[in-house]
């Protein structure tokens, strides 16, 4: 029944996240014909500046459906929303959420089991938030006269899910140190922001950034899964959740 409480604690965050990402994915697919017309009419872009090069790259990618999806969805919307909802799903609700922290602690279950149940429910929700929109893209692509393979969609979703689970793990770990929901959320989002900022300030860092892994750039450019990056992100996420369990076990209430 612990899973039921974890679900009750996170269901609104999950439902809102899933609804937003499903709608976003659907609108992204439906918006493709309009973007195609705009791209065809786009004037030449000055590529002497960094911004110009970026815009030019987006325009260039958007000439094809696959590139458009990667640039608009996987590299941008899914990355931002995926990070946000990974953090939201990982924050709070460990012991105290909607009251009842001492009630939970009085139940005959170990704190390790409490945390792992909460983590499992959160990760399943994150999985659905990531995979359902990706599969929806593949399923609805024919509606705009295009096709997008389910295999490619799944590969992109794997990258997003595994990397986002590290932010989920971070928020979960912070939630074992703070009793409110806000500080874990804000600190984890600040970490994501700093990583994003570091990518812009130090371009060599881009290849090693977890945010790059989340975009599935390797899948897009080479068609292969970035196994080393995925393994590193999975190890990071596992160690964060493990540390959270140890932290929760040590904590006094």
């Amino acid at each position, binding site marked *: 029944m612990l899973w039921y*409480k974890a679900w009750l604690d996170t269901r609104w965050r999950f439902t809102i996240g899933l609804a937003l990402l499903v709608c976003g994915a659907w609108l992204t697919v439906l918006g493709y014909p309009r973007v195609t017309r705009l791209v065809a009419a786009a004037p030449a872009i000055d590529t002497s500046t960094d911004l110009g090069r970026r815009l030019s790259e987006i325009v260039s990618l958007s000439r094809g459906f696959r590139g458009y999806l990667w640039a608009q969805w996987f590299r941008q919307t899914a990355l931002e929303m995926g990070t946000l909802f990974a953090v939201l799903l990982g924050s709070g609700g460990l012991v105290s959420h909607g*009251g009842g922290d*001492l*009630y939970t602690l009085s*139940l005959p*279950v170990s704190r390790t089991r409490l945390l792992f149940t909460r983590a499992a429910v959160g990760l399943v929700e994150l999985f659905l938030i990531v995979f359902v929109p990706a599969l929806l893209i593949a399923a609805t692509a024919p509606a705009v006269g295009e096709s997008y393979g389910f295999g490619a969609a799944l590969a992109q979703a794997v990258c997003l899910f595994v990397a986002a689970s590290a932010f989920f793990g971070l928020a979960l770990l912070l939630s074992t140190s703070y009793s409110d929901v806000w500080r874990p959320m804000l600190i984890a989002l600040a970490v994501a922001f700093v990583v994003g900022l570091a990518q812009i300030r130090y371009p060599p860092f881009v290849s090693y950034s977890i945010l790059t892994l989340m975009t599935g750039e390797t899948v897009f450019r080479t068609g292969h899964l970035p196994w080393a990056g995925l393994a590193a992100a999975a190890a990071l996420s596992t160690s964060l959740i493990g540390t959270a369990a140890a932290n929760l076990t040590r904590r*006094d209430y």
Partner: protein
Amino acid sequence: MADPVIEAIGLRKTYGDVEALRGLDLRVPAGSIFGLLGRNGAGKTTTIKTLLGMARPTAGRVRVFGLPADEQESSVAIRRRTGFVSEDKDLYDTMTLAQMIAFTRPFYPRWRRDLEAKYLRAFELPVDRTLKTLSRGTRTKAALLLALCRGADLLILDEPTSGLDPAASEDVLQALVRHVAHEDTTIVFSSHQIAEVDQIADRIAIVDRGRTVVSGELDDLRASYRRVQLVFADDAPEPGFRAPGIVRTRRERRVLTVLCDGGADLVVQEARALHPVSVDVTAVTLKEIFLETVAGREE
């Protein structure tokens, strides 16, 4: 004497610089209604939290059902046999009572459906209203139902009547007494309401500043504690009693008052040597024992 359900020896707990428990000792025999009496901040809640594994003792030993309460696995086994009501009546506010019962029941293999039906009826609890909408009294009864139906060998109740009106308090206390009369249960409850401890407890411990200052069977305490009041013709002399068990001596002009735990006869013998005008030995109430022991330590 049979093995105690709870045994704490030299229990210490510090939170940063704050010493919540400073060597507390506790021994709760099976089948008793044990009142943990103390002022706010005396260490009652911290004691309860260490019994349930919610807080780890800094030093000392604490065993419940003979199991170490500070080890994770044992703590789970202890909680399987223990019902608990927290001071704030912590429940899941967004659930209804029916959902809370359905959530809690699977954790306790000995869950008593007969008691569930009985207390739902007796407490007139609304099962389909979310818990955050319940009044304080109804919420307390709901928390009590969730603790009593666990088929627990031990009930730990932290200030079970706090914030309740006298009628609701009486309902809760009577429910506890009836429960113990019919079930094989030990109850430990904390309170700073002396009257209710006096009303239902058969054993007590008075806790002050993280230490047990008085402990024992309530009837024994009532029999052993005495106030010896000496009135002198002039100002009372400086007290210099050597009799054992003197808890507190108070001198006020012509009157010398001695509170003693046993040995009142010896005090009277010594007192006669001081040539008082009158010697009066009276029994004391639990309230007086509490106030004298706690206030005495304060001075």
